[in-house]
């Protein structure tokens, strides 16, 4: 037992740390954010798009996508996820974590994995038409060469090379994963105007051409297990990201209350806010350690699903609490566009429930109680 960052984990921290300087983090937190109510036709500013591409290129150089797609480097991955959450950096990495697990479960006939690992190829998971992260239906045409489906909450669909459409044929108990070229006439995108003002899309597939089915068929026997594995790994990644987000919101607030003077002294000196921040710090430490435990279990070949689920439940709650507290302790300034507190607050609303609402996660956990 040695519960501290391993050399490899410290390596990830140090390499990313060189990129994520305070100035860069300040930029990243605003990168790709659309104006309030920008609606469906909200292309990112060209300069922003270029900046985003260059950040992605650096992450690829640092082999972060390779971490996301590996199955034995969770310990390093959660360190990276934490730092990216701290920087509020939005990216297709969550989907890459899940996509890699799906692709690995079947012969990789399209050679997707190497592109995902290098970061040269980006994919977006198109899974749900509803709030629940579970797969919605998909209509299969002909002998499986074309599909029609509607999907919402597809992250970074506009920039993706391919969509992985996870779905259940109507009336069929089976599950399939179709690989679909994003740039084709049968794929229509509409940007969703979400509270995070980011890159979520509604995707309509109308007899879109299928490049391939993972597992070779729309009824892939291993699909439920592969999807469960994908969700497990994505949840662990997301939990780490949310802990980082909470840490970022907390650090922002701690710095502010030390400077902000009220009643002739820094706000930090008042016990009411100080103790609330201390409690958030303690919760961040505990939930962060649960994430690390889950990563260790994963790399040690253990069943890390329950730990990932617990960590995600607690990290989502923590991220929302820390970001709400950030606004409260910044005062009205925290709500202004100039202050990042409101960014943490808005993004946490989406990221905390991205892979399941607290109610859904608790219900799933409840089934694992002895006698539950």
């Amino acid at each position: 037992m040695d519960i501290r960052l391993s050399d490899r984990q410290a390596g990830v921290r140090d390499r990313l740390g060189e990129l994520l300087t305070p100035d860069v983090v300040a930029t990243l937190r605003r990168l790709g954010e659309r104006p309030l109510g920008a609606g469906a036709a909200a292309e990112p500013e060209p300069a922003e798009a270029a900046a985003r591409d260059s950040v992605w290129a650096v992450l690829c150089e640092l082999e972060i996508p390779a971490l996301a797609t590996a199955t034995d480097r969770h310990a390093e991955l959660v360190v990276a996820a934490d730092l990216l959450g701290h920087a509020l950096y939005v990216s297709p990495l969550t989907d890459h974590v899940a996509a890699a697990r799906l692709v690995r479960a079947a012969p990789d006939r399209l050679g997707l994995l190497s592109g995902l690992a290098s970061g040269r190829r980006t994919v977006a998971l198109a899974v749900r038409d509803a709030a629940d992260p579970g797969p919605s239906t998909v209509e299969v045409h002909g002998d499986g060469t074309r599909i029609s489906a509607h999907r919402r909450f597809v992250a970074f669909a506009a920039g993706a090379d391919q969509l992985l459409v996870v779905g259940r044929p109507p009336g069929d108990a089976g599950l399939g994963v179709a690989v679909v070229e994003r740039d084709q006439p049968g794929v229509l995108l509409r940007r969703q105007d979400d509270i995070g003002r980011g890159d979520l899309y509604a995707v309509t597939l109308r007899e879109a051409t299928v490049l391939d089915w993972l597992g070779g068929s729309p009824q892939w026997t291993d699909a439920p297990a592969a999807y469960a594995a994908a969700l497990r790994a994505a949840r662990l990644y997301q939990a780490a990201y949310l802990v980082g987000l909470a840490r970022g919101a907390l650090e922002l607030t701690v710095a502010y209350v030390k400077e902000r003077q009220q009643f002739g002294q820094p706000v930090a000196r008042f016990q009411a806010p100080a103790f609330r921040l201390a409690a958030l710090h303690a919760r961040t430490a505990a939930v962060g350690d649960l994430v690390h435990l889950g990563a260790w279990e994963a790399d040690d070949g253990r069943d890390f699903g329950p730990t990932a689920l617990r960590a995600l439940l607690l990290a989502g709650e923590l991220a929302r609490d820390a970001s709400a507290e950030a606004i409260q302790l910044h005062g009205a300034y925290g709500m202004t566009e100039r202050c990042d507190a409101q960014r943490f607050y808005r993004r946490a609303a989406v990221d905390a429930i991205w892979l399941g609402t607290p109610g859904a996660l608790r219900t799933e956990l409840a089934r694992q109680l002895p006698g539950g």
Partner: protein
Amino acid sequence: MDYALTPAQEEFRREVRALLAEPRVRKAVEEIAHYRPREEPALLDVYRWLGERGWLAANWPVEYGGSGRTVVESAIVTEEMALAGVPDDAHVLSIDIVGLFVLLEGTPEQKRRFLPPLASGESIATVLYTEPHCGSDLAALTTRAEPDGDGAWRLYGRKVYNQKSQFGDYALCAARTAEAEVRFHGITLFLVPLRSPGVTIAPLWSMENNRFNEISLDGIRLTTDHVIGPVDAGWQLINKMLLLERTGIDFHGKVRYWFDRLVAYAAATGALADPVATTQLADLDARLHAARALAWRQVSNLARHEPDPVSSAASKWYATELARAVVRLATDLGGLPATLSTWDGESAVDGVLEAAYRTAPTLTLASGTSEIMLYLIASTGLELFS
């Protein structure tokens, strides 16, 4: 991060768990649950059974009755005792607090004299820190040690909220040996023989099963042999030791034991069919797992001799705050039967949940209150007050 116990440590955990699962231990735990009012566990046989194997103070050297293992094995014993429902208050006081002081700060003679009876489970040592007006402000203590020639001292003062001294042989007592401008200076630690003229132990009855004691020190004479560590340096020692004692392992284990009993009760009564109940339980279960992860980080820090005061404060705060949530949920889900005591005869889970409800406040008060933990994090960790 490596959370793996070594194969030897895994085996040690299995052996400890096996001992604690023996019928004689289960019988003792059940008997304790049915103790008469105002009766409480003292020197339990199970301590002696652990002591015989050198497990009660597993990380102490063999010559002092331990088995020369590490703090990891020591934490395993503490955790397993708590998870098995074996009362650990006397163990924590004797081994983890007083014994640790003697082990790290005592003279060779003091170690030879005081440690073996504690490690074998044949003697209890307790702590005399706080006083009626002190609370968390320990440096305000007024118990005084007056020089009495030949390096001897006489102690005068009143200590409160002490536990287990009615069964104890010695108590670690903080007394003022010098008046100083800085009130943290001039405090010295003494090992006070409790069965002596000049020491009066009286109960301060509380709602909990374990009684508090009020202890009057009326001029008991102590020699240099009774002084632990340097004279006037007690404050520094207390703070150093608090850091070594405060992992959260014991607190988490205790709350987990209550929680597991609650889940078992809910399963037995059909309450798990209620999705509201199960989701509340699942939520607390997740938090307990987080508490445990953070507590084991403290053990790992200690094993490397790198205790972290902020992290250990976070661990203590996080684990103990769950106590309140668990006992509240126990009465919410258990309903009125969970409020019946063991003496009623129709209580839920032998009155364990009712007793837990009365005990829970001690967790957020003992070993540094929740507010002191938050103060430590806010001041030392976040540097908010500088």
